[in-house]
């Protein structure tokens, strides 16, 4: 607690299982199309979920909190969307889709059990009326928030987020080249943003660069899927990068190798499973194309609260 460490080490991960109704959601076409048309394969999704949870437990060493799947909530595995956690505060969001808002209940309970300060986005009416926000549109860099204004997230939602996390600058950016902000970019390391090289993503990146006071290294990957990674600062002083397997993003390997930053990214795409390179360990957790709005990881730096908030990864 010596100081505020925005991007602290993770201690916990929260995931939610794959419901039987996985893939039954008609409204998610956008995402599917986005990531390459893939069939919603329940078996594959559950298999990947197993890989993910295993990696989080065994490789990264996090305490995993798994919320049981709810068949009534086919998208509940996207747990990332319903909560944004930074420090000791968890903002329970209001997803765009009405039917998803009930997903928050279970998450809220977990947050409370973890002694997080739970902040609600507010009632359906009132100051934050009309505010919608989904965690997959929120990118926390450790220094600031970027909120992608998308079909699922609006300005009012971003304002609530800004009001919740007052220590940080909250900038809104348009989401281009993807349905969700974190479909096109994610944190790939300290002050490092991995972003796909689509024109839309570049546009978004330009906006981010314009709005930020800080300098970020940018790793551009040719495939959109490759831009969906999870940078985890594990409790064991080792940093991990969860990334799609090479076979998922064959084009991304050379890009990574060419990247001058080099200390770990250069390697991690090359190793089949994971590599320990320096202080970073890259873990390949995906077996096949996944939906990339899947990860949600937030850290708590406070002593008394350690949490990694994670959602499962699934393939469509």
């Amino acid at each position, binding site marked *: 607690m010596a100081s505020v460490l925005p991007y602290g080490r993770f201690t916990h991960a929260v995931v939610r299982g794959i419901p039987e109704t996985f893939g039954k959601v008609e409204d998610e076409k956008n995402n599917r199309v986005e990531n390459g048309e893939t069939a919603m394969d329940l078996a594959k999704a559950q298999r990947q979920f197993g890989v993910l949870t295993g990696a989080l437990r065994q490789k990264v060493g996090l305490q995993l909190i798994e919320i049981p799947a709810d068949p009534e909530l086919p998208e509940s595995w996207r747990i990332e969307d319903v909560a944004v956690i930074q420090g000791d505060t968890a903002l329970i969001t209001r997803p765009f889709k009405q039917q998803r808002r009930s997903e928050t209940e279970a998450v809220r309970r977990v947050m409370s059990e973890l002694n997080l300060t739970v902040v609600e986005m507010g009632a359906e009416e009132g100051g934050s009326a009309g505010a919608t926000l989904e965690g997959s549109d929120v990118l926390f860099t450790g220094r600031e928030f970027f909120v992608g204004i998308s079909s699922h997230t609006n300005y009012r939602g971003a304002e609530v987020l800004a009001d919740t996390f*007052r220590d940080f600058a909250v900038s809104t950016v348009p989401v281009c080249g993807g349905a969700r902000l974190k479909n096109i970019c994610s944190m790939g390391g300290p002050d490092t943003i991995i972003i796909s090289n689509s024109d839309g993503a570049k546009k978004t990146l330009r906006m981010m660069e314009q709005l930020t006071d800080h300098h970020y290294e940018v790793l551009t990957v040719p495939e959109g899927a490759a831009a969906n990674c999870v940078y985890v600062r594990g409790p064991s002083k080792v940093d991990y990068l969860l990334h799609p397997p090479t076979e998922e993003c064959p084009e991304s390997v050379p890009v990574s190798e060419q990247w001058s930053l080099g200390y770990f990214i250069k390697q991690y795409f090359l190793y089949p499973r994971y590599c320990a390179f320096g202080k970073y360990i890259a873990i390949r957790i995906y077996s096949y194309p996944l939906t990339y709005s899947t990860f949600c990881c937030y850290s708590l730096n406070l002593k008394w609260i350690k949490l990694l908030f994670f959602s499962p990864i699934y393939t469509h």
Partner: protein
Amino acid sequence: MTTEVGSETEVRKEPEKAEEQPAAPESEPAATNQTDEAKAAEQSANDHPAPATDSAEAPAEAKEKQEEAQPADNATPQEGEDTPASPPASEKKGISRFLPPWLKKQKSQSQVGPKESQAAAKEEAGVASVKEEDGEKGEQAEAEQTSSPTAAQPQVEEEKINGEPKPEQKEEVKLEEKEEENHSTGSADTQPAKEEKAAEESQEKSAAEEENKEAEEGGEEKKDEEESPKPEGGHSFIKSPLKLTKKVKMVMCHVTMLDGSQFPCEVEKRAKGQYLFFKVYEALNLLEKDYFGLSYKDNADQTCWLDPTKEIKRQIRNATWQFAFNVKFYPPDPSQLTEDITRYLLCLQLRQDIVSGRLPCSFVTHSLLGSYALQAELGDHDSGEHRLDYISDFQFAPSQTKEMEEKVVELHKTHRGMTPAQADAQFLENAKKLSMYGVDLHHAKDSEGVDIMLGVCANGLLIYKDRLRINRFAWPKILKISYKRSNFYIKIRPGETEQFESSVGFKLPNHRAAKRVWKVCVENHTFFRLMTPEAPIKAKFLTLGSKFRYSGRTQAQTRQASTLIDRPAPYFERTSSKRISRSLDGAPMINVTEAQESAPTSGENGREPGLELSSDSKSGRLRVQGENIYVRHSNLMLEDLDKTQEDVLKHQASISELKRSFMEATPEPRPSQWEKRLTASPATSLRLQAQGSLEEEMTSILFSKFACESGLVDPGCTTTRRAAEGAVVTASGPLASALLTTEVLLSTDESKPTKHQRCPPSRTQEPLPDLTVDTVAKSADDKQKSGEAAWQAAEVEIEETVVVEEIRVAPKGSVTITTPEVITHVAVESEVEKPKDKVMEEQKRPVSVSSDSEEEEEEEEAGEYHPQVTVSASVDQIKEEPEEEGEEEEEQQVNEEPVAEPLPEPVVEVKAQPVPAVVEENSATEPQLAPVAEESPEDILVTPDEAPNGHAESPEGHPGPVALEEEEEEEEEEPRVNGDASHSETERLPQVICCSEPPVVKTEMVTISDTFAAQKTEIATKEVPIVHTETKTITYEAAQLDGSGDGEPGVLMTAQTITSESLCTTTTTHITKTLKGGLSETRIEKRIVITGDSDIDHDQALAQAIKEAKEQHPDMSVTRVVVHKETELAEEGED
């Protein structure tokens, strides 16, 4: 020291007395006239510092008066020119006769002059003090001069003033010159004298006025006295010394310190902000003071920063003398601060910000920061001593909960062993990460009318909508910052993929808000963005040049200066507001006030005598030798001064002649009527104006006259020009948002080409007591040399620039004196006509100076600031300055165009852009000319394009002036530096920012202008919010004179455009000289734009303008007056 002082004093007094005697009569009468004794005292005080000046001015004025009264006396003026010294005396006699009308003017002048002179005195004093006095004094002096960037500027200004003012203030100039020559001795002399005087004054004050002075105050006063040698302290004292008998009105200021305590401080009513700054810094024992500032609440309850370089009274206007000591520039990395006391003060500020909610943070951060604050104030947590409620006295957050307090306590326990300094450091380390750290928010609307917030910070400009950051413009991305009326614009550097720069406009609640944002941006950019040692200096220059510039040290400079701090860490008591701190060390509890009291003393002890905060700290003389730009200034000034004195005298003489001629020449009835109107002081009317819809008024007055001055002009003195700008609005009066534009065209035909004709040295006599600007052009040698003495009003920075130019010019033999406008301006420019031969020669020489000045003036109106001088990023800083000027001008143009405002933007461009300027220049000239044309004044107002029409129609018929002007201007640009002196015609740029800048600037300006011309205009048009305006145009024409010159095409000999700006007035003077047959005709077109939030008495303003024009150009006649009134339909709540 005392002994020296005494001797010096004596020396000084003698000259002063001598000066005073002449001046005294004038001033006294003036005082009497003006019921306010206080004013008189002030004047006297002012006079003291610059007794010579006043006296000099007085004579000149007297001459003028004489002329007015006795048009017949041509000889006097001539003599005056020949023998500068003699005229004053004779004039004085005359003056006494004419006291009433002029007195006011004198007052205004004297006021202005005094300030400047005071400033100069301060500088000198400061120098002397530095040398002689203790480290403290040195520090103070430094603070004045160097430490506070503002101080540096002031000094420069002062120096300039000394040099420039000379024309007006002959005596002062002389004295100053002497001083300068003697440097240390001279300065020392003056200072000591001042000190003594100050002491006397203080005694008097104490005796006569209030004995309220408590022990503290007394101590302060003593300090002041001691300090008085220093710049600020010196001021008041200096002022008083001259006229010991007169009272100096003292005002009690209350400064709210960061710990919540009240710091009472008595200051002279006329004191500049700097003085108060010093007192506060001294009380705090603060060396790294550049991060701090004093704020006050204006009438609208908006927080404004006190400008150290300007009079306090003028800034606060009717508000109470209540100030707050605050952090003005939040250091991005507090760990780089040198002293703990600085960090401590920053902590206090941040705690204030947090509690007030200005610095939002999360619960955790509140708790954490609170715990550090506790640790710093209370030390280690003592479970036995500290109960849980021990922190209830502290406030950590806007809304503090028990839960938070518990958290704070919990965290406090973890800080065990941390020293107060460490706790502060930790506090700052966490606070600096907050996204709103150091962000100064201003309410605004975007181009679509959506409510947003503009956040100005170290890195640039942030745009917030509610709490969301929706855009950000880093300083490197911003090419120009400007404001026009209630609109605030930034021009964005084009990105890699973009071809054109774009500009973004924001709508502020009112004109003042826009200006405030602009100023904050300028200051922050200058402070944080300009880092290199070289650049900052230039920046300062630039700063000086434009009206509003950050005059203080930049962060880089202050850091550098901080490295020189070599004193033992000063002892200071950490106290939280409203509670007595328990010192960790077991030190006795001390009230804040006590602490403050003790602080100064300790500070003195702590400070090393030799310690100088800034490199600049050295005395002015030293500076001169140094590498600093300042030094250069001083040198230049010295040179100028020498030359100037004579010039000044001549100038005055010429002025008197001009006046005389004017008196003779002006028979027309109309002017008289106008004059009658004028009798009512415009200022007053302006004051009265209610703040309502934004109004723009343009009044254009054409004076056309065949000036045949045969006997009046001495061969030696060819050109005399004097532009006096008076502030229409007194300091107390609110700035009028309405734009008043008055264009006055003065055309003078020289009947005698062969002889050296003396162009009408125009002197504007402004009834307005507050503001007076005189520009005097003088010819010294056979060649006609025109010197412009610029009085820098305390407020006008631009003027300084002018000085620089003058300096450059000076070597060539021309001396230019420019008097800046104080507040509202009525700038009258008169051109001097030289014999054809000379004229021709001179014409060859470029007359670039004038154009530049005009532009700058305009800039004032719409504040423009080019953060990044050069488009090329590489040397941003260096270029910035030049660009700024250019940009400003450009900006103005851009702004104006979209709005279709009458303001002569083009003029500005002309100066700036040599080549590109041509087009722009034309446009600029056109507007000016337009007024001449009777046809459609309205058009003119609407668009700059009018000009062409005006030319055609212009009675005088200078078809070619535009083209010629352009050519000339082009030529002029380069020559500017050289050439002004030679030209009799030379335009006086009363306030030329550009001029001050080196040639480099010009180049830059050119670049800027190009972009502006092409791209900016378009952009601006698109983006600038549309302002609905009503326009009225009234044309008054004196038929008599008009016809004379029209028919003949003539040959354009010279065309000059001068622009001067005051707070709410912009004056553009366009002077065109044409050779027709054997006669040379000079036409002067003046455009005066008055902008104000409140209604303006148009009649009075017009009358004022005409009166001034007539005064300035006695030998010319007014041929046309066009009044254009543009009223913005109040829609979105101008105010």
